[in-house]
């Protein structure tokens, strides 16, 4: 047990030793700590103070007292150690500090944890940042006075606020990029401007960028970070709200003390609006420049001291400067023409000094030495009465000036032209009239017409208005019209008008007018003579020519009848165009004399006659006898109306001979040469072509080029700029039907080097109208003789062609007449009054059976002709012939002849006209005779037939009479019965009485009276019958119509007695007419009979007569069944009857009708079916 006690004692000892060691350790530690603490306490920059709690009775903390405080604290409080150790906080800091800090103290002691806090100590005007730690009943507060910090912070904040505001106001947004930390910081303004809710992250920034810019921005950014270049970039960003903006980032690198880049400080500016504005500005600048360039209006501006001038590019162009050259004001002015400089200078000065704006036109000499006309305007900007800027424009008007001058020259030309020129404005009033125009219209001065309307100058008042409409539609017009002078007289003009525009784009209508009165008059006369020709031509076959010799010796065949073709074989159309065709046919031996005879006739004004040989192909000769009378024309030419008769035997077929008369050929040749020469001189040509409208053309075969002058363009209706200048232009203009022929002709010309002479149709490109163009040309050859070109003229012959066509129509009509004449065996004669001889053509010789041999000169003396005329007709023929000769009236007579040979009687119709002649010497009749025997024979036959008809008719009438008689006998027989009865009865009664010897006078008287009555009646009837049988043809018997009517009634008694009531209304006046009694009986018997037939059972017939001095009327009306309208028109037709066969001949009314006509009367029937019929006969006395 000791041992265990000994163990126990050693372990306790050990444990005690150990505990003592620990105690010392810990004591040493505490001492260490205390030392540390003290050091800290003393050396800390911060305040350190230890406080001991003072609790109250309950144990609640009441306050605390200071145990120790370090220097910093003491300094900060401004107290010594003595003053504060052992004092409470209130005692040290004043009353209220306990309360102030109590919450903190309480907190640290309840938590037993250190507590940090910042508090402002009013007492010491301190901001304190403290940390208080509990230690048993003590606590240690360490802290710092951060008042300065706070102030500084506040200041900084203020500054930062100001900065932000400034940023806000400037629209600048600043940002920082820390290179080392790669962190962004953005100012509030930045965030606000760019619509972020807070500072964006790098991802957000990248997202905002335009992907296209991303690479570029990164590159620039990387460069900027490295330095030394500053970062500046414009790019687009997309804000979070989707809005797109343009921004400009500018940043500067900030370096550390070591020179390392640490920060990128930048500003982002929103340049969206700027960009837009710039764009707009550029746009408008570009626009203005363009406009300026187009209008060639240059701008200029003087500013400041006005010594220098700003010129736009266009202005510089005008001056001839390069774009970078500048001028001062004096230099600019000196560019003007020396004569104009003073004016310009003065104007500029006035503008600057007095604020007077100006404009002028002056000459400017560009740097290149070119003289230009310019127009310049200056406008000063005045401020407070002083000019601050003078600006204006300048424009090159050289072109305009040129055309102005041209205008002036043209105007001059217009003024003195012989043609009238005028311009009408869109209101229809004259705004320009040249002298020729006003003179033409009989006004003194152009000013008299200006302002008036063309209405007064044209005969048709609507013309001007229609013309304007037409011009507006079709742009041009050329035509002839009737114009009116001031004094009211009318005259003819040819007018060419166009639609044009003045400088303002208003419509104007210029016209050129030529007085063509004379020409028109001539035309009219020509037409009139043509008409006269037609008249004669209608009666005369053979050749009719109208030939004209001009004072200059040129001649024309104006008209030729178709006989030309028959006899000479020349187509009148061709002859008219080229009368050399006729001259050529004239036998060369005769030509000279022929022409001489014409000249003689022209000079002496004597009637012309000439017999010439015409040479036909095969050297066949024909003789033609020409006669004509010359008449002088207004243009001093002579026209002959001639007739040519073929005085050779006409049998042959026609051939055509071509010879060119040398004179004519030369003339034509000369003309063509002249025309071609003229083509070399354009100026003079234009004048000529204006009048003759002849166009010139030149076709270069090698280059296929075709050159036309203005008139050609006009003719074809092609615009110069449209014209291709190639040969095809001509070909394509031709009428398809004319193409082949004319192209061939051209080819022939080229190949054979013969002159071109063609006629073709074209369609005017603009108006579309058909035109006939005559073309003439000559070839040009190279040294080797190959054709290299063809050149010539074209002129419009549409009018002539149309005229020719007209004539052709007339001529073809003539042909028809002639053919008819031929068929009708018409012969022509010319009777020479003086010689009393008639010239006959073949036909007449044939008709009259005279021999040609007997009359080699074809003249038959009148008396020899008369010898074959039947004696009965000679007188009339001679008289009429004489009358025509004396009075000049046309001859129209018919007579018979007995031919010499065959002794035939022929009927001849003769028509003739006296030749209109101005001289007394030649008096002749031209005429035609034709055999009308056949016609006459027919006429005679007709007469015979008519007579036969009359006879037949008479016979028919007779047979009708017979038929009537038949009717009569029946009636008569019946009528006689009764009278006979009376006689028989009376006789028998008497007989009886006599037999019985019983004669009583009274009775006997009665019986005798029966007999008497009977006898009388019978006698009457027989008498009437006699009347009917009379066949006298005399129409001069005195007829008592009433008696006749009564006779007829008697005859018809049996038909109406007891059935039909007869009402007689006889006139009291004379019923006598002259006529044929028998026939009149027939008439009334027929009519009354018809009336009775019409009444079936009963009715009435009213017979009414009326008589005056001049006529006798008989009306017979029945109320029977009437006549239908259809039949009414036929009743008088022979053999028309509505009765069944055997009951009427149907001749009754037709014979009645003819009898009434013979009696100079009229018969008319009116009827209403089933009602009545009235027959009205009217006899003229």
């Amino acid at each position, binding site marked *: 047990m000791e041992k265990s006690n000994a163990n126990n004692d050693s372990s306790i000892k050990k444990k005690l030793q150990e505990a003592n060691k620990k105690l010392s350790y810990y004591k040493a530690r505490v001492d260490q700590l205390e030392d540390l603490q003290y050091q800290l306490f003393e050396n800390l920059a911060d305040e350190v103070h230890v406080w001991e709690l003072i609790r109250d009775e309950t144990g609640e903390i009441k306050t605390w007292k200071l145990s120790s405080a370090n220097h910093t604290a003491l300094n900060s409080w401004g107290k010594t150690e003595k003053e504060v150790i052992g004092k409470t906080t209130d005692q040290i800091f004043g009353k209220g500090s306990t309360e102030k800090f109590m919450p903190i103290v309480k907190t640290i002691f309840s938590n037993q944890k250190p507590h940090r806090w910042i508090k402002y100590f009013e007492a010491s005007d301190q901001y304190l940042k403290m940390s208080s730690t509990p230690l048993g009943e003590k606590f240690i507060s360490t802290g710092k006075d951060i008042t300065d910090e706070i102030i500084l912070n506040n200041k900084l904040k203020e500054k930062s606020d100001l900065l932000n505001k400034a940023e806000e106001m400037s629209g600048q947004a600043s940002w920082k990029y820390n290179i080392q930390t790669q962190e962004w910081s953005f100012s509030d303004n930045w965030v606000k401007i760019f619509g972020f809710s807070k500072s964006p992250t790098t991802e957000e920034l990248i997202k905002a960028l335009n992907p296209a810019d991303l690479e570029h921005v990164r590159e620039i950014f990387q460069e900027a970070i490295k330095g030394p270049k500053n970062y500046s970039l414009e790019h687009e960003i997309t804000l979070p709200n989707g809005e797109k903006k343009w921004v400009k980032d500018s940043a500067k690198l900030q370096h550390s003390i070591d020179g390392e880049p640490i920060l990128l400080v930048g500003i982002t500016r929103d340049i969206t609006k700027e960009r837009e504005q710039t764009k707009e500005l550029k746009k408008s600048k570009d626009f203005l420049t363009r406009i300026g360039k187009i209008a060639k209006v240059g701008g200029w501006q003087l500013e400041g001291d006005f010594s220098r001038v700003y010129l736009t590019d266009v202005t510089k162009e005008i001056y001839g400067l390069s774009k970078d050259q500048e001028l001062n004001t004096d230099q600019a002015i000196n560019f003007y023409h020396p004569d104009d400089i003073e004016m310009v200078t003065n104007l500029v000065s006035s503008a600057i000094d007095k604020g007077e704006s100006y404009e002028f036109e002056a000459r400017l000499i560009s740097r290149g030495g070119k003289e230009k006309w310019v127009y310049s305007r200056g406008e000063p900007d005045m401020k407070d009465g002083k000019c601050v800027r003078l600006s204006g424009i300048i424009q090159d008007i050289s072109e305009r000036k040129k055309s102005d001058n041209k205008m002036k020259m043209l105007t001059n030309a217009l003024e003195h032209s012989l043609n009238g020129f005028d311009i009408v404005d869109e209101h229809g009033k004259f705004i320009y009239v040249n002298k020729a125009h006003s003179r033409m219209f009989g006004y003194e001065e152009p000013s008299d017409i200006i302002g008036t309307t063309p209405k007064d100058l044209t005969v048709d008042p609507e013309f001007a208005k229609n013309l304007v409409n037409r011009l507006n539609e079709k742009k041009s017009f050329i035509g002839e019209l009737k114009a009116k002078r001031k004094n009211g007289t009318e005259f003819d003009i040819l007018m060419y008008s166009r639609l044009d525009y003045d400088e303002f784009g208003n419509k104007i209508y210029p016209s050129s007018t030529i007085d063509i009165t004379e020409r028109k008059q001539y035309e009219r006369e020509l037409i009139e003579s043509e008409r006269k020709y037609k008249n004669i031509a209608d009666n005369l076959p053979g050749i009719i020519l109208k030939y004209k010799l001009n004072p200059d010796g040129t001649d024309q065949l104006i008209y030729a009848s178709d006989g030309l073709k028959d006899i000479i074989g020349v187509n009148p159309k061709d002859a008219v165009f080229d009368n050399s065709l006729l001259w050529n046919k004239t036998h060369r031996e005769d030509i000279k004399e022929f022409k001489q005879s014409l000249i003689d006739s022209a000079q002496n004004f004597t009637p012309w006659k000439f017999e010439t040989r015409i040479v036909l192909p095969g050297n066949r000769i024909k003789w033609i006898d020409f006669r004509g009378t010359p008449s002088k024309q207004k243009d001093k030419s002579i026209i002959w109306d001639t007739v040519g008769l073929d005085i050779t035997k006409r049998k042959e077929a026609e051939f055509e001979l071509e010879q060119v008369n040398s004179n004519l050929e030369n003339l034509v040749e000369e003309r063509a040469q002249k025309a071609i020469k003229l083509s070399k001189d354009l100026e003079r040509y234009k004048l000529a072509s204006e009048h003759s409208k002849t166009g010139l053309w030149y076709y270069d075969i090698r280059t296929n080029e075709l050159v036309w002058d203005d008139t050609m363009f006009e003719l074809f209706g092609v615009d110069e700029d449209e014209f291709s200048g190639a040969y095809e232009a001509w070909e394509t203009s031709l009428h398809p039907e004319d193409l082949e022929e004319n192209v061939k002709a051209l080819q022939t010309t080229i190949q054979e080097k013969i002159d071109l002479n063609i006629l073709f149709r074209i369609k005017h490109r603009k108006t579309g109208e058909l035109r006939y163009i005559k073309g003439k040309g000559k070839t040009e050859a190279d040294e080797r003789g190959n054709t290299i070109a063809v050149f010539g003229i074209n002129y419009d012959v549409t009018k002539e062609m149309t005229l020719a066509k007209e004539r052709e129509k007339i001529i073809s009509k003539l042909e028809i007449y002639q053919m008819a004449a031929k068929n009708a065996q018409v012969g022509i004669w010319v009777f020479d009054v003086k010689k009393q001889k008639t010239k006959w053509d073949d036909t007449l010789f044939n008709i009259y059976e005279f021999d040609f041999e007997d009359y080699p000169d074809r003249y038959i003396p009148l008396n020899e002709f008369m010898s074959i005329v039947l004696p009965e007709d000679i007188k009339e023929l001679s008289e009429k012939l004489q009358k025509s000769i004396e009075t000049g009236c046309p001859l129209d007579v018919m007579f018979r002849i007995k031919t010499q040979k065959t002794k035939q009687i022929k009927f001849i119709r003769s028509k003739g006209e006296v030749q209109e002649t101005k001289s007394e010497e030649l008096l002749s009749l031209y005429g035609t005779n034709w055999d009308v025997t056949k016609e006459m024979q027919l006429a005679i036959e007709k007469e015979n037939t008519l007579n036969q008809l009359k006879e037949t008719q008479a016979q028919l009438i007779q047979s009708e009479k017979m038929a009537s008689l038949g009717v009569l006998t029946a009636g008569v027989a*019946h009528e006689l019965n009764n009278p006979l009865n*009376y006689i*028989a*009865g009376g006789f028998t009664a008497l007989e009886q009485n006599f037999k019985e010897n019983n004669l009583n006078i009274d009775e006997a008287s009665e019986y005798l009276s029966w007999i008497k009555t009977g006898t009388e009646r019978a006698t009457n009837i027989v008498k009437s019958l006699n009347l009917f049988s009379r066949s006298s043809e005399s129409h001069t018997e005195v007829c008592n119509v009433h008696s006749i009517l009564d006779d007829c009634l008697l005859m018809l008694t049996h038909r109406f007695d007891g*059935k039909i009531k007869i009402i007689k209304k006889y006139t009291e006046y004379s019923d006598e007419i002259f006529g044929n009694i028998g026939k009149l009986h027939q008439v009334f018997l027929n009519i009354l009979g018809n009336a009775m037939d019409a009444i079936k059972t009963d009715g009435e017939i009213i017979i009414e007569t009326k008589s005056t001095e001049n006529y006798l009327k008989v009306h017979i009306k029945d109320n029977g069944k009437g006549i239908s309208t259809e039949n009414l028109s036929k009743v008088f037709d022979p053999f028309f009857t509505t009765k069944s066969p055997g009951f009427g001949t149907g001749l009754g009314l037709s014979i009645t009708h003819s009898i009434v006509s013979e009696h100079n009367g009229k018969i008319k029937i009116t009827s209403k079916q089933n009602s009545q019929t009235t027959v009205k006969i009217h006899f003229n006395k």
Partner: protein
Amino acid sequence: MKKEKVLYVDDEHINLLILKKILGKNYDVTIAKSGHEALDKLEKDPEIKLVISDMKMPEMNGLQFIKLSTERFQNKKYFMLSGFAITEEIQNAIDSNLICNYFQKPANFEEIDNALKKECEQLGD
């Protein structure tokens, strides 16, 4: 012997007088101017057995009168005295025994007398 009664119809007055006078010797002649009057007379005097009639009368011609009479009265003999030649109509009347005989004017009084007598005898039987 009592005279046989005869009726004579005719529109012509003188004819009536003539016949009455001449036939009146042998017969008792009644005259009538028209068919109507004749019918009346026949009505009034049924003893009249013999009738002579003219053909052509206004209003009612002879045949029409005779036809009507035969319808109204029995036992009468009819004769026609007319200016007309025998027509088909009259011939038919004779053939059908409507009328016994036809006389043409101017009258042959003997002929008429004989004919009448003949018919009288027949009637008497």
